[in-house]
């Protein structure tokens, strides 16, 4: 890598982002890549749109100076979730964007962002029926096996769902 202080990320459609490497010190994927393939020009980030990657990088920039110990597990029971006002923008995004950010956080292996988006998804699932959850977070990407399982579960899904 020509400039070790910066890292270039490339989304699947070829959009590139160059940011200080220090921003991504909580991304296990990036850290592993830097160790093993850091001599390459750019790191490809599959399945992440430029818009989402920019949002993820914004999150990383906001938290770049954080001194808290990195999370090993997003659901670590010893570290209760505490809302951070700096993350309000992430909590206000539409459902489909929230899903994409959750996926991107998982792909880049940033436990702090996984925790944030998962917590937000959980709060939106509260009290929703399976159909509503599908409409919110599983709209067009049902795999074939999921369609089959939905058919298997059909009546249960309608009648067996628990409402509050």
């Amino acid at each position, binding site marked *: 890598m020509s400039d070790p202080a910066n890292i270039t990320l490339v989304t699947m459609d070829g959009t590139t982002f160059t940011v200080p490497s220090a921003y991504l010190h909580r991304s296990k994927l990036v850290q592993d890549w830097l160790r093993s393939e850091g001599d390459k020009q750019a790191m490809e980030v599959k*399945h992440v749109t430029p*818009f989402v990657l920019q949002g993820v990088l914004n999150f990383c920039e906001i938290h770049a100076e954080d001194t808290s110990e990195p999370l090993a597990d997003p659901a670590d*029971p010893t570290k209760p*979730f505490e809302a951070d006002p700096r993350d309000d923008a992430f*909590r206000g995004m539409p459902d489909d964007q929230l899903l994409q950010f959750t996926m991107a956080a998982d792909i880049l292996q940033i436990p702090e962002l996984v925790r944030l988006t998962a917590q937000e998804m959980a*709060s939106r699932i*509260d009290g929703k029926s399976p159909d509503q959850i599908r409409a919110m977070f599983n709209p067009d990407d049902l795999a074939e096996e999921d369609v089959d399982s939905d058919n298997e579960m059909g009546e249960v899904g309608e009648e067996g769902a628990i409402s509050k």
Partner: protein
Amino acid sequence: MVDCFGYLLLILWLEQSSRQFSPPPTLSCETVMSNPSGTVMSTPPLPCETLTTICEFLFGPTSGAIDEHLSRGDLFNCSLVSRGWRAAALPLLWETLAVYCGESEDVDIDSGSSESNDDIWPMLADSLVVECASAARDTDPLDEGLRTWHPNFDNFHISQSPRFLQNSVVRALADFYPNLRSLKLTFLRELWDREPPCTVISDQSLCFLIDSCPHLRHLELRKVSDLSNRFLIHCAQHASNLRWLWIEQRGVQLTGEGVVDMSGWKQCLEFIDIRCGNRGGAKMDKAFVKAMGTNFKNLRFCQLGKISRGIRN
């Protein structure tokens, strides 16, 4: 306090959800350089680990501010979204499913939980217990349920249920429960006399189970099988994590003859009890009995026919 904070978050979310999301401020460094193709990319399904994290926030110790507002009902609804969501939600939702079929052939699902909320649905993740006081003639085949739901039980126990004591159930376990730790299939003597199972568990299906469930630690087959030495030969060789083996059957052909390679059992086996024939009095193969007395570092109890090695410390 947590309750109030949770409501506050909920209100906050309701307010925010009405707003259009605007991305956070642009990065201060060099960012977008090019977008040559401009293609639209679809988001792949969330991996199971992430869905599990979401579900743990729904009902787990980390849920913090919202844990007072969410119940197993939410997890159950998540389990109905898709196969992937189901795989993530069910292990958190269920702990033990106990199905008892009484004289009236009604199926009662006992949650084992004192909670009134959602108590029609059991907690189940590790264990499935099925017990029938009588033959439930019209019960749906259990193996179909296992193949459909496969929530990855660790422990599986069927007792007094001739309808469910089928090779197809064992095959379904072998096909879909690779993490199975304990399998108990039992039938009381008095019920056997009155209404013996229409089929018995065979060598072939149990050998397949041994091969498919490498973590199996506890295998208990009491009056449900008519096994031969073929199973014992296979089990002794391949069941390397088995700690507890208890077989009780009427057939006298399970003598241990031909069991030479015990490399599997020698890893972990602590308890073995094999009794065949009337009152377990059938004679066991002498060479087998002798071999069981040597080179088993973990074996604490050994009962082969009428011969007992007692308990070692």
